[in-house]
């Protein structure tokens, strides 16, 4: 096969994969999940959470401490678990309690984890799973 065709075909395949992924992300994102997050299978309403838990400031960010969020749903011995943070689009990161307890949940559903690289700072948080 000629070089021109090979290059063209590879480019088309890659772009199709990217466009397909974009459509998948768009379709799989549910805007109705907007104002709640699931923490250990318990639904937390953000408005209520931000009214009941005192906000703190870490670096330039202000939000509720993730330690308080975890304790709010009654996790016993939180230091014995690891935590999987998932965004609405499926992006996931697993963190330890030591890292999580230093973090904040911002009102716009963004997680700030000052002790970890930014790739761990989940945007549009949908749920936190607790792994034993």
């Amino acid at each position: 096969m000629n070089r021109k065709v090979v290059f063209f075909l590879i480019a088309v395949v890659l772009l199709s994969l990217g466009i397909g992924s974009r459509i998948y992300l768009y379709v799989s994102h549910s805007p109705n999940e907007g104002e709640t997050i699931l923490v250990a299978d318990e639904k937390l309403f953000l408005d209520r959470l931000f009214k009941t838990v005192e906000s703190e400031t870490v670096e330039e960010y202000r939000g509720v401490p993730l330690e308080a969020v975890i304790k709010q749903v009654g996790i016993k011995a939180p230091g014995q678990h690891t935590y999987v943070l998932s965004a609405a689009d499926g992006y996931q990161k697993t963190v330890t309690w030591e890292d999580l307890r230093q973090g904040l949940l911002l009102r716009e559903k963004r997680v700030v984890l000052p002790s970890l690289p930014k790739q761990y700072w989940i945007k549009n948080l949908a749920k936190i799973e607790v792994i034993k």
Partner: protein
Amino acid sequence: MSKARIVTGIVVFGSVWGLTECLLGQYLPGVVMTGLIALGLMALSRSVYEQRGMQLAMGVVAGVLRATVPLGQCVLCSVIAIVAEGAIFELIWWTASLNLKKEKNFTILISAGVVAAYLCYGGGYVITQIATPLVSSVPFKLGEIAMLLPKIFSRATLAGLLGGITLPVLAIAVGIKLFPVRKEAYYPVASLITAACWMIALFLI
């Protein structure tokens, strides 16, 4: 071309790339940094020096410079991504035997730009996700990368589209000798650019 000339080219282009990452990396999206800046510098240097392995070495130089400047949220991720992009570009150019000076077919140039930028961005992203936990204390989960793939493919498309513009434009610029290098000025100019890049980087620390 002499070895000294090539090594000088690696240091100059690597330093410029590294400094650009330091200065613009935290303001411009990653797709722009890869599809425009990184691809542009790598393709330009490859067309000037025609030396295999040069872009990987440039990535290492850029990575070292980037590592010295603690700007942005994740310096380590940035360093890993830069070196990975250099390695992936090297692999693509070596496999495809591309030469911007000789290639006149715009379908090939556009397609090659799309493929190179797409794979550099996507590959760099995946390698960063794998390598960052390996060299830091954070846990590594393969499932998390799998979940991330749609997002990577989606963003890489934008990088690819930018690459599809960058490469033909660069080929035209190289063709009309927009980047002339006079022999007697080569080493002084190269030294000046390199020194300026590292001085600015040290100033940023």
